[in-house]
């Protein structure tokens, strides 16, 4: 069986590398021939072309993420029209059915952000910065929007780059110039979360400022264990890679398919759970 996965995140993105690890694990477990593909940057135009390329190979199943239904819709509909079973994952839960996908595995970025926002508000936050390392990446922008919706208080988006030194300096600058900030929300664990923890320590406000982040890295989880950070949001994205492949493999073999969408998260990893997760995170499974 040939199953193709086309995702919008890159293989070297910490989050997506875990998805890919899930894909690889499923390939091993099912014996299917699975390829993971993604554009080099967040590029919807190129991604739709990659889906077209996948459809041309007439695989037995296609897994896609759908961060932009308008841009990817026609390509996905073409796949469905060509008779290829499609499962969507990660983003696109709202449009998945409409475009003809069998089901959706994952959780909406917006929902996850909202849950995190609510939790941080509950922890006493009222004034937050949402640190976005890739402004314009709709999937990430949605996280901040969801966070703002759930948080309720003042939320300022802080645009940064992928460079930890720059992220740390900017967070320090933000904290220095606005002493009211009491919450830092990062959109990536190693790119933003870890430098955020360091920045809060450097300005001497460890304990006063809650730090949380999307996704996980072993180092950030260690900070959670040590009490320097509040929590990490786990979408269990390993499942987003693993399950669709398994479903499609079973579908191709026996015609079996679950009846509804599978929510893979959100799952807030706080200090009590972080300890167990570190090892798995260091292996790229969580």
């Amino acid at each position: 069986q040939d199953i193709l996965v086309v995702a919008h995140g890159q293989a070297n993105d910490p989050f997506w590398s875990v998805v890919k690890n899930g894909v690889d694990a499923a390939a091993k477990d099912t014996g299917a021939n699975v390829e993971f593909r993604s554009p080099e940057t967040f590029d919807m135009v190129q991604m739709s072309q990659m889906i077209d390329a996948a459809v041309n190979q007439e695989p037995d199943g296609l897994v896609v993420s759908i961060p932009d239904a308008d841009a990817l819709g026609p390509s996905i509909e073409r796949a469905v029209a060509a008779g290829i079973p499609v499962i969507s994952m990660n983003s696109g839960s709202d449009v998945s059915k409409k475009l003809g996908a069998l089901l959706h595995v994952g959780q909406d970025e917006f929902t996850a952000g909202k849950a995190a926002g609510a939790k941080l508000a509950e922890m006493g936050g009222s004034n937050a910065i949402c640190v976005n390392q890739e402004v314009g990446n709709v999937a990430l922008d949605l996280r901040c929007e969801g966070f703002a919706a759930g948080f309720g208080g003042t939320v300022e988006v802080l645009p940064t780059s992928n460079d930890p030194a720059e992220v740390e300096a900017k967070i320090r600058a933000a904290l220095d110039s606005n002493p009211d900030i009491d919450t830092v929300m990062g959109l990536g664990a190693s790119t933003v979360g870890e430098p955020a923890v360091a920045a809060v320590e450097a300005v001497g406000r460890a304990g006063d400022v809650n730090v949380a982040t999307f996704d996980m890295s072993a180092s950030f989880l260690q900070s959670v264990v040590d009490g320097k950070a509040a929590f990490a949001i786990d979408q269990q994205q390993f499942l987003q890679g693993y399950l669709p492949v398994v479903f499609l493999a079973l579908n191709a073999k026996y015609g079996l398919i679950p009846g509804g969408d599978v929510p893979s998260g959100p799952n807030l990893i706080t200090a009590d759970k972080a300890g167990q997760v570190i090892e798995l995170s260091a292996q790229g499974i969580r």
Partner: protein
Amino acid sequence: MSDSASQSAVDERLKNESFGARLMKRPELGAIAGVILVTIFFLATADPAMFTLSGVVNFMTPAAQLGILAIGAALLMIGGEFDLSIGSMVAFAGLFFAAATVTMGLPLSIAIPATFVFAALMGSLNGFIVIRSGLPSFIVTLAFLFILRGLSLVGLKLATGGSTQLRGVREAVEDDWLAPFFSGDAFSGLFAWLAKNGLIETFKSGTPKVPGFPVEIIWFLIIAILATWVLLRTPVGNWIFAAGGDPNAATNSGVPVRKVKISLFMVTACCAALVAIITVMDAGSTDARRGFQKEFEAIIAAVIGGCLLTGGYGSAIGAFFGATIFGMVVIGLTYTSFDQDWFQVFLGGMLLIAVLFNNAIRKRVTGER
């Protein structure tokens, strides 16, 4: 003074030159060896679907989108300047166009010319600052890279009320008579007929695998031919080479270097606007990351195609082949079974091998050393 008129007919100071050597000497054909090598590579390693009609159309589509930018970038590079803002210009022109059609509900016959005029204005602003200040265009257009990208973000949020994605373009323009020139597939009637008669592949369902010829490929061809014509067969082409080769010498010889350079900036920006219009109409939406790093890829394609970064040398056809190589490699790897983790290693390796091969072939054939 009529000495040795006969000598010019057959000159003993010339060796015979093979046809291949004469071909390879032309910068516009230099990249052809690379295309052949890449094709052979994928013939050997990729799924055969890649070289079916639908596969070719599939990899030529991104190649064409990149190629339109690359030809603009190549002309500008030959003229001795860079434009790093074209990627951001794709995003901003896309926003401008989408806002015009969706938010303001303008028909394409107004929205499209307005987008081009706007892009040309931005391009001439770039050019004007470069010429006036004497600063390197690298740094001036870099500033516009940031400014336009930032304005796209701000503009999108304004137009949508907070989101960084503007949707609904397809619905807004669907019925416009100009739409078929900038989106979708050309000759779809022909392709449907071919499919019905079994002349081209179809899916199991009977629909043709290729519903038509994507318009961007047609634009790409037209622009490549036009640019080549301008470069090789018009006075302006001569001025472009001269302006890039040595602006001082060109000015001293009476070439209007400033006008040429500003026009080139405008052309490049219009190429970006064209790509923006095509992709926005194709995708039906636009977002703040559109065109990200495309300036870079366009320059890569132009350089693969034989343009010199220092200006004064290169060709539009070269950029055409350069974009084709780049598009083939990027999409082609999707058809192979290499692990995605190795994607960038392969991409880099393929590019390097393609240009090295190219170079080696040219040196061998033309006897240069």
